[in-house]
């Protein structure tokens, strides 16, 4: 039985490095994405009033679609992360834990 229960060994193991980096990259990308969307939305609000006044459907302007759109996109990005984390990430964590002999 060769159990790598020392945190240093776990940290160095390839499985752990992989899952750690994947999570780091995904969370940074999603953070930049949502912050970027917000900043772009504010800049459009500040500099392109004309475009915001365009009627898209039945009296609702582009501006209202964008504002409500950002709210919904914010929620969807959390959903994307959750889907990934609940399936892929948790599976890799369980694998790492198994390899170090933790009870699951």
């Amino acid at each position, binding site marked *: 039985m060769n159990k790598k229960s020392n945190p240093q060994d776990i940290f160095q193991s390839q499985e752990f490095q992989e899952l750690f980096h994947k999570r780091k990259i995904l969370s940074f990308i999603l*953070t930049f994405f949502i912050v970027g969307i917000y900043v772009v*939305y*504010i800049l459009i609000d500040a500099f392109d009033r004309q475009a915001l006044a365009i009627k898209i459907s039945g009296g609702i302007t582009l501006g209202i679609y964008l504002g409500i759109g950002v709210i919904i996109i914010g929620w969807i990005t959390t959903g994307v992360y959750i889907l990934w984390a609940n399936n892929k990430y948790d599976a890799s964590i369980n694998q*790492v*834990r198994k390899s170090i002999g933790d009870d699951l």
Partner: protein
Amino acid sequence: MNSTSIGQVNVVSISFFFLFVAITLMITFWAAKKSKTTSEFYAAGHGITGFQNGLALSGDFMSAASFLGIAGMVALNGYDGLIYSVGWLVGWPVVLFLIAEPLRNLGKYTYADVVAYRLSKKPVRSTAAVGSIVTVLFYLLAQMVGAGTLIKLLFGLPYEVAIILVGTIMIAYVLIGGMLATTWVQIIKATLLLGGATVLALWTLAHYGFHFGNLIAAAENKYTIDFLLPGGLVKNPLDTISLGLALMFGTSGLPHILMRFYTVPNAKEARKSVFYATGFIGFFYILTFILGFGAAVVVGKDVVQAVDKGGNMAALLLAEVLGGQLFLGYLAAVAFATILAVVAGLTLAGASAVSHDLYAGVFRRGESKENDELRVAKISTLSLGVIAIILGILFKGQNIAFMVGLAFAIAASANFPALLMSILWKKFTTIGAVASMITGLGLALILIVFSPTVWVDVLHHSQAIFPLKNPGLFSMTGAFLVGIFVSFFTHDPQAEEKFNEETVRSCIGER
């Protein structure tokens, strides 16, 4: 519509309110049996599910200020209200991506647990506790003064009586029922508020053939296209972005929000709770947008403004016109309940910073007996509640609108950068953390005093020294830069050595 009963004693409303208080106090006494250990008092014994915590988290954000204030802002300024609420929402994805899981895996009851995980406990914990307490105090003060004004407006109750009533009931929740009672009060209120706002929005839309476009068109007819477009809020886009960043990253540094992640059993439930919370809050902001437009069209801007200059009564006036006394009474009681639930959560977070971080962590160096810590937590709760009542009365009639923005700026500058760097950056040092937190706190406080919000609006100088209304952009950047700079020039071998272990635990949890 010429007359409103808002501001008079409303029997329906008072009955609803007493019903709410009676039920929540019953829950509090039930929870008292399960609040005998520190884990139960601070974190509801980690027994809250992700869905329940999602509702409770959203309840913390759906304060009276955002329910009544944002609906009022939409009713008076139209589209600007939507821009404002978008800024409040986008902080939640950030909490999920950067903070929620490592926080749950690394800490016990407070975010200072995490910042101090591999750094020197004493200096880091005490500085982080100061950041928590200052954030909570400003937030709490804003809620208390808002509560007094609101309840006076709603029921005609004297300001001081309202403050003492809110303070006393809130202390009872926290002191007797701890986090379990506080969480359930928040869950019940969030459900009542979401339900009430949904019914009111549908009721409004029913008058427009259940088509949102018809409501928008009616608003355009009445107030021209300008009502549907950005107005004063983005005149200075840098200002809006600075406020937006404070709201966005401040959410990840609010002690009463972060503390809720310890009420769930593990990181997976913590993660799920943010998904639910973001959904509820987003839905709620879309509802308040509809309510604001409804109030502008059905009630009329002039009537809304005649009752309250800031427009805070817009949603309630709409409820009165559409649903009469009964519905108005229900919503007014929910608004009152909202204040109670939010101040209870804040007080618990402030008390835990005193008892868990300062007393147990610093004063007793982590060697205190559980009963002693619990006793200090209860004394802190009582003291903080009394302080909130006194400050609320002292600040009567003061212009404190900037205080919530300031609380977010401090959270984004003093708390969030140190928290994030302590999780992610191996070379982050104790001195770097302390310097970052002090810089963030100091800059946020100094810049807000020099900003138009305080220098011009409160102190009545003609010109502000610092141009932006919210210092978030600069104070947060400053806190990051100082933290990085100081860490480069100092060494903390113990912290570097523990980094790998911390990272492993932040991913796979306690073993």
